[in-house]
């Protein structure tokens, strides 16, 4: 059988993969940092544009076996592809100081990031479990290297190893689940799986002899185990409790821009995968309670542990774990709602997608502010190091506070507020009032640590504290001439504050601007999320 391949549908994937190849070639042939970065930036922008273009032209599908297709270029795929490309672009901008410092090889760094982006773009369109897992691995695999790419960084190597081991186990678990599902149902296509389970759920009670005998599929322990394995394996990727332990250590050991990528793009990947399997394929009767439990645990544990964090990136890591709980919560309400009507699923999925979009914007802004406030090659540092930072750098400080307040879900961070509102609304529409109350109460716990960081940013800085920062700040010794805080300077080591690269400032400003715009016009996000 000759398969026709719809190359237009694959355009975003081609663009993303082409970017990776071009970046590699540019690094080999031109061997100049500027050229490599420029090629990458242009490629990522083209990918975003291509994704929008293909999405706007209407849904397409390819690699079909009968009615079931492995690659679905619909509106949501376009949204995911565009988001991945833009997030990659943002992270690339945040990486400017890191690339300039020479701590990482620019060619490899950009190539790996582009590979990861390719995985993300394909992930949004994945129509079967194999494509899904392969795309997810393409997304994750380069990150193992990126986390540990810095020269002479023990923390980075540790973080990379932790991430690698945990992630490989998670993938194995997902694959085992997928294999078992195949054994039970005989298919890996998400739409076919959904149809099989729907037919099972509606199967009449066997009365006569002509109905196939044997226990219903949904009552088979094997089915439940298979579904649970797939969902839990994917829960690793979004760093949901109890599969979250890798995240804080990995984020903190990675360079800050890579941590930003992990907590935005990589998390988005996990969410997209989880949405793909729960919304269309797997029976909500099994995934619903599982995800509800995961959501409750994730937000509660994430928030409570974040309360005790003293390091900035770890705090953001735990907070992003908690945020994953809010994202998963609407999916948990699926099975609890009476009947699994198509409308209820759409509402829940749209709420999760909308929350994710709001979240990645705010999270990117928060990490952007961290990068802008820290010396070029430093890690996130202690929260105490940020004491008075907003007084020295009012605009960056204001952007940081806006992002934090948005993550807490309060005005003036209207984007975050509407994100919470969307989730609570979808939960109440899905008759999961108790889950809505838990989400709401968790927001209170969340405020406690966000406001602590915000207050630290504006706190008066005692001069004595400042001297200690230089010793505490960089894990890696700064190169001579790098604008890190010099140790021998008098009272105020960085009285002339470190000027962040313009790319970092631009990315931060853009993320903040987007956060403000979608804060006043959240309907934009709600509309694209409902695609």
């Amino acid at each position, binding site marked *: 059988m000759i398969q026709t391949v719809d190359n237009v549908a694959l355009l975003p994937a081609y663009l993303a993969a082409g970017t990776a190849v071009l970046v590699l070639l540019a690094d080999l042939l031109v061997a100049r940092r500027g050229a490599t970065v420029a090629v990458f930036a242009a490629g990522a922008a083209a990918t975003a544009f291509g994704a929008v273009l293909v999405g706007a032209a209407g849904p397409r599908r390819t690699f079909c076996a009968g009615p079931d297709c492995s690659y679905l270029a619909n509106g949501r795929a376009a949204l995911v592809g565009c988001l991945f490309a833009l997030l990659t672009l943002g992270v690339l901008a945040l990486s400017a100081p890191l690339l300039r410092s020479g701590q990482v090889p620019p060619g490899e760094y950009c190539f790996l990031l582009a590979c990861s982006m390719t995985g993300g773009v394909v992930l949004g369109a994945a129509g079967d479990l194999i494509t899904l897992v392969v795309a997810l691995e393409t997304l994750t695999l380069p990150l193992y290297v990126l986390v540990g790419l810095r020269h002479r960084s023990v923390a980075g190597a540790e973080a990379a190893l932790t991430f690698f081991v945990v992630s490989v186990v998670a993938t194995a678990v997902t694959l085992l689940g997928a294999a078992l599902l195949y054994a039970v149902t005989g298919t890996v296509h998400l739409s076919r799986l959904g149809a099989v389970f729907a037919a099972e759920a509606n199967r009449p009670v066997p009365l006569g002899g002509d109905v196939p005998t044997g226990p219903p599929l949904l009552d088979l322990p094997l089915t439940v185990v298979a579904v649970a394995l797939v969902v839990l394996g994917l829960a690793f990727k979004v760093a949901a409790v109890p599969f979250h332990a890798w995240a804080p250590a990995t984020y903190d050991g990675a360079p800050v821009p890579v941590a930003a990528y992990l907590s935005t793009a990589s998390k988005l990947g996990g969410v997209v995968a989880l949405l793909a399997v729960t919304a269309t394929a797997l029976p909500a009767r099994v995934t619903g309670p599982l995800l509800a439990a995961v959501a409750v645990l994730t937000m509660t544990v994430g928030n409570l542990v974040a309360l005790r964090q003293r390091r900035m990136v770890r705090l953001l890591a735990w907070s992003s774990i908690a945020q994953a709980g809010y994202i998963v919560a609407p999916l948990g309400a699926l099975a609890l709602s009476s009947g699994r009507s198509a409308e209820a699923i759409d509402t829940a999925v749209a709420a999760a997608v909308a929350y994710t979009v709001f979240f990645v914007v705010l999270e990117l802004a928060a990490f952007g502010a961290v990068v802008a406030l820290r010396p070029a090659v430093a890690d996130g540092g202690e929260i105490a190091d940020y004491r008075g930072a907003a007084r020295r750098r009012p605009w960056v400080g204001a952007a940081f506070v806006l992002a934090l307040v948005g993550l807490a879900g309060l005005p003036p961070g209207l984007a975050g507020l509407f994100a919470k509102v969307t989730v*609570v609304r979808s939960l109440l529409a899905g008759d999961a009032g108790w889950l*809505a109350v838990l989400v709401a109460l968790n927001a209170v716990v969340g405020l406690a640590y966000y406001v602590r960081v915000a*207050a630290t940013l504006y706190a008066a800085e005692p001069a004595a504290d400042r001297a200690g920062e230089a010793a505490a700040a960089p894990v890696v010794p700064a190169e001579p001439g790098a604008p890190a805080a010099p140790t021998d300077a008098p009272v105020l080591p960085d009285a002339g504050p470190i000027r962040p690269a313009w790319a970092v400032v631009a990315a931060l400003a853009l993320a903040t601007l987007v956060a403000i715009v979608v804060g006043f016009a959240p309907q934009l996000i709600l509309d694209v999320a409902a695609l």
Partner: protein
Amino acid sequence: MTLGGIGLVATLAVPAVGAAVLAVLPGRFDRAARITGTGFAAVTLVLAVLLAVGATDTWAAYQPQTAESPGVHPWHELDLTWVPGLDLRFQLGVDGVSYPLVVLTALLTLLCCAYTWWRVPAPGRGRTLVALLLVVEVGILGTFLALDLVLFFLFFEVVLLPMYAIIAIWGGEERQHAARKFALYTLFGSVLLLVGVFTVVTAAGTADLTELTGGTGLSKGTQIAAFILLAIAFAVKSPLWPLHSWLPDAHTQAPTVGSVILAGVLLKMGTYGLIRVAVGVAPEGAREAAPVLGILAVAAIIVGSLVCLAQSELKRLIAYSSVGHMGFVLLGIATLSGTGIQAALIGNIAHGVITGLLFFLAGAVKDRAHTGALAELGGLRESTPRLAGLLGFAAIASLGLPGLAGFWGEAFAVVAAWRVGGPLWTTLAVLAALGGALTAAYLLRLLRRVTHGPASPAVLTLTPGLHGAELAAWGPLVLLALAIGLAPTLVLGYAEVPIGALLEAIR
């Protein structure tokens, strides 16, 4: 857009623009910034007062209501689409229930801004303080004006962080702790409000308060669940015993202007929400929960008064007295009768005026004597007779002397409870009356300790004069306390018809 609609938007836009202007002004124009901010607050007050133009259902222009008319009749209305996906419309309106509160908010904000001309609490930066006061004003005015439930919630939230900043930056010794406690408690309330609001909105399919008032289309179970959530949310804000424990800390630690806004109008968001949203939208739930609300309100009156009797710090005493006074307001609401809700509204306004004045005076005393301990403030009458006299006036107004503003709310809350009848409400009325006597006891104790008694060393050195800015800030409040006391129709004239309509709708 009608002229009234423009007026509604302008009432919100002017302070918002003012805050934005102050935020971009360079820091060296601090004094100019404070004056500019006061100008914006003054324009807001004028706009707020003008909202009464065209009022249709005051005593002066009474029109009988048609049978099918809803429970809320705004004088002016504005309805714009904002976020259809979340049932959020930019829908504003003003009527006799919200109008007095709107004016009070604008007035108190203006007085607080004007007060900063003369005194900016440490660590300075009056520009930021005035800008934050204006943002708080936007939030409070928006809460009173919103006719869309989701918009109401949104404005309810706007107030939280600016107020946190006011306490955390300009507060007293324990400001960080107090500010954090305020923020977390209040957020706890408002997240329950969020859940409550969407319980109603998803069940009814609309967030329009004019449609929702009366509980049409909501099952009894939904109404009870919604009322419990909403009542807890508003009880934190009001605050209702036993959810009040953020209040003494916040009020005591906040700077003078912060305390005035907190006590004067911020608490009213809770009681207003209870009347307009909780009772209006979920009347069946309100009827079920009324006894519980009444018991807690009376407990608040008694507990607040007893705690006040044992207080040794001036601002803390006034703060706890708010718990007792708001208890009367909540008792009035809990009766679900016309008398009771009118008593609640006038009690709201009176408490705002009188406690605002009391906090101004307490701030002045503390600024002068550098202590708030009652034991060290004896003999204020001898060194600063005018200040002592004003304090005496405010305290007597607060204890509910007939002829002053505090009387009507408390007396008629008791009367309303008595009229409901039955053993429970009769007992509650008697206990509340007893609480009223205790209120008199602790305020007289305060006067005896502070203004009379032997002069203490801290007080003897004070100069007798009052600053012009102080007189300007306090004068309107003194006059209002007298005026409302002598002519309660100033408030009730606006409120009577809308409350009648509300009661008609929830029957």
